[in-house]
């Protein structure tokens, strides 16, 4: 069996195997899987793949492997899970340097020992049992557990579709959760990055100090690049102290206007919320608004009381006096990080907009959904201008496509309401979708600056060997 593995590849990396059915990337079956243990092996793997003319797709834990367009070529999967070392945790400097395959959960445990955290909380996709979707070829896709060791080793397969993901995967997809309001997304917290280019060249940018303006910040470019510019092998991050106390203030808002008022009041308050989230599982239900307050116990208690007063009294008209005392809890409500954004199957759409447009965007979601005859779950980081819409798997592709098209016209078209705004002041990107939906609608939609993005791709990966076709505009 090993005889079929090209010599150059086998020489490059101690752990290369033939791919099994569970290794498919969004339905595209690779021939081989390489598991480099570090930068040197990763560079050798890519150099070998390049010399063999093999297309390559990076993979971490696989939790977001189904995001994006299926690759047009996938000879080789580069699995980062053996690159799982926390290289340096400089607690006094609030900085950590890790290999790309380190899991977010694994890292959180290490950091917690020093009372610190990486302030990223992307939704952990929770797959439902059931038939695989999104495949055009046989074999399970994301959202299912990988069947046994199919690759000739006795290591259990990566837990596809589960968990918060790896550092490399979270960086590559730019995935972020409620904390984005205060701490931003992976690109905001990464302070250094090491990548391997398609030809095997290793390159670092940034470093391990937070304040640093030497050279171009390649970390920004690679964050959210879906593996199309190269393989992320190491990254350094700024850390924050773990808050001693947390509090979640929640309330129900009857409609889009009430939801907008509550979100704006919380986000515009001087109470320094770490997150302001919204969730509505189905039309006809109220919008659930949740506000996260963090800090020392006393401070959180005081701010919780003030937030309850602010949201409950209607102090910021037209804030709804829906509940005289919105409930608060030290624990997140069940829907926190578990709403629409966590949908592992079906179609998941990320909508970005200017926060003041919240009511209009919620109205647009409902109008587009009604016209398409569907009822997506809606939720996300409303105060940060990011919402997710999740459409169930069984919904006809034509209806989903119509929904996405209508939504795009509303949030992305027509320019902003203010002078000087960009012509396309918002977007609706399909993160993952079943194959039938992918065939019916462009997942990325219009992307300003696409010409420059193509030029960047051509510079970094002139032969288009890295995750080809996964990105916007066929990149």
């Amino acid at each position, binding site marked *: 069996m090993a005889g079929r593995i090209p010599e150059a590849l086998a020489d490059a990396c101690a752990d290369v195997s033939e791919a099994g059915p569970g290794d498919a990337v969004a339905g595209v079956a690779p021939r081989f899987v390489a598991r480099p243990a570090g930068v040197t092996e990763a560079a050798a793997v890519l150099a070998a793949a390049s010399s063999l003319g093999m297309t390559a797709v990076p993979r971490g834990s696989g939790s977001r492997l189904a995001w994006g367009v299926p690759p047009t070529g996938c000879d080789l999967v580069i699995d980062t899970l053996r690159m799982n070392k926390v290289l340096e945790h400089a607690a006094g400097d609030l900085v950590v340097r890790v290999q790309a395959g380190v899991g977010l959960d694994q890292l959180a445990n290490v950091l917690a020992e020093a009372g610190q955290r990486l302030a990223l909380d992307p939704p952990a996709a929770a797959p439902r049992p059931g038939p695989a979707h999104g495949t055009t070829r046989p074999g399970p896709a994301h959202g299912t557990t990988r069947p046994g060791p199919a690759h000739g080793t006795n290591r259990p397969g990566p837990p596809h579709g589960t968990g918060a993901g790896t550092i490399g995967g979270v960086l590559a997809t730019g995935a972020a959760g409620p904390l984005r309001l205060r701490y*931003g997304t992976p690109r905001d917290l990464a302070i250094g990055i090491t990548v391997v280019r398609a030809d095997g060249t290793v390159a670092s940018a940034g470093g391990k100090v937070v304040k640093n303006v030497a050279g171009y910040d390649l970390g*920004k470019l690679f964050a959210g690049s879906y593996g199309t510019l190269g393989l992320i092998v190491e990254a350094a991050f700024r850390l924050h102290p773990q808050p001693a106390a947390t509090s979640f203030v929640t309330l129900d808002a009857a409609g889009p206007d009430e939801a907008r008022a509550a979100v704006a009041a919380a986000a*515009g308050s001087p109470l320094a919320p770490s997150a302001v989230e919204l969730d509505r599982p189905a039309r006809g239900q109220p919008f659930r608004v949740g506000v996260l307050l963090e800090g020392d116990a006393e401070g959180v208690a005081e701010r919780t009381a003030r937030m309850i007063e602010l949201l409950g009294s209607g102090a910021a008209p037209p804030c709804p006096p829906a509940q005289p005392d919105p409930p608060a809890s030290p624990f997140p409500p069940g829907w926190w990080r578990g709403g629409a954004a966590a949908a592992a199957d079906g179609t998941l759409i990320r909508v970005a907009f200017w926060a003041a447009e919240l009511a209009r965007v919620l109205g647009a979601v409902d109008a587009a959904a009604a016209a398409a005859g569907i009822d997506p779950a809606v939720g996300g980081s409303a105060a940060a201008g990011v919402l997710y819409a999740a459409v169930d798997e069984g919904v006809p592709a034509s209806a989903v496509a119509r929904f996405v098209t209508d939504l795009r016209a509303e949030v992305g078209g027509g320019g902003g309401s203010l002078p000087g705004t960009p012509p396309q002041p918002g977007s609706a990107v399909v993160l993952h979708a079943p194959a039938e939906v992918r065939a019916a609608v462009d997942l990325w939609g219009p992307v300003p600056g696409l010409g420059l993005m193509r030029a960047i791709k051509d510079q970094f990966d002139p*032969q288009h060997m890295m995750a080809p076709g996964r990105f916007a505009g066929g990149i």
Partner: protein
Amino acid sequence: MTAQATRGTAGAPRQMEGAAEVAGAAINALVPQMIDICGRRDVLTDPAELATYECDGLTSHRCSPGLVVLPTTAEQVAAIVAVCARAKIPFVARGSGTGLSGGALPRADGVLIVTSKMRRVIAIDQESRRAIVEPGVTNLAVSKAVEPFGLFYAPDPSSQVVCSIGGNVAENSGGAHCLKNGFTVHHVTGLEVVTPDGELVWLGDGTGAAPGYDLLGAFIGSEGTLGIATKIIVKLTRIPEAVTTLLAAFRTMGPGGAAVSAIISSGILPAAIEMMDALAIEAAEAAVACRYPEGAGAVLIVELDGPADDVRRETEAVRAICEKEGAYEIRAAHDAAERTAIWTGRKSAFAAVGRISPAYIVQDGVVPRTALPEVLDRIAELSAASGVRVANVFHAGDGNLHPLVLFDDAVPGAEEAAEEVSGAILDLCISHGGSITGEHGVGADKSKYMPKMFGPGDLDTMQLLRCAFDPAGLCNPGKIFPTPRLCGEVPGVRREPHPLVAAGKVDQF
């Protein structure tokens, strides 16, 4: 007045005489087109006028530009750049000219595009916490414009009264308060830019979650080498409910440094932590009579902001830490006037050094915060061994050092000795895992240090980005990278229209 940052070396750029004449003829040929675009008044050709733009805040690097244009609209900037691109004439953008690394150093064979006439605050969106401004608007003017809405623009470089937002974008400017709030790149969510071939393109859409590669993040901090920003969407921050500034005086630097570490490890994240040593304090006293506590070998300034109750408790905690670490006097400012009194000494420190030394070099380097005590010791050793005095002013919270290397430019060899110490400090920063610049940028000044911090593969890869934006190498050439990369033809399998032409198609609405 010699009290200036004189950071020149023998290798500083000087225009070559013969080449300048040829370049001059090529540039003169552009003048009629530039006048068509901007109008006669905003195209400067008089040598005396050109000379006023010969340097930015780093006065040791000087070069009179071939031509200066002062556009007022984005379309004019695009047209100017298109003319330059067609004629293959290099161009350099300049905001207020306060940069400290020669990033806006003009070229004798090039056009200097000055954005100081583009000063409109175009729109403010209170609920989205965004403002749209032109690049020539000063940093402080943004905060002033949005103050009535209870908002401010967080990055606050020391030059914020005069420095422009466009320049901040180019340099990814920070400021004293970036410890808590981050840098320009965390507070800009959209840019309309003119690409190096003269197309107007939006990078980012104001939301902070635009689809595609993060061109916005890559552009910010690229020191004007990827294009010229013509509109900037800034993210605004809620003005904190309370602000308290503490000044703690220590007899020596050691305990002050220990206090910084203790504050950070207690889980408190102050808005700013600044530190000055005895020599810097002496200079500040001489210049602005800031009346810091008598006998201080080190002063620590800690600013806390946020919800009022949190700030009150954190202030008490920081005070207790400073006392425990040996502070012999602590002052607290609760209103703007008291805060100003404390900050005056710190903010005047650079200029104040002119009172105690005829000339000096402002250095900018970064080390991991925990390495600060050791690096400061090593700087003291360097100073003692060379006889070159070094005053230390720094953003202690993030390990960003601003050593002021003092010398007398009337003494032969003194500048060279100061240069050597200044360079050795950067070596210290690199060997401790830090950076050669925390906020001033690489520019024309530090490109020679880039190979010490980055390997050939790193620099080559960074320049791929440059090649994607500016294959002809006309946009602020000669900055950041010691050796330019020849972009050449991409040996790709694809043969498409020029990528930037494609960009134009996509982005023209």
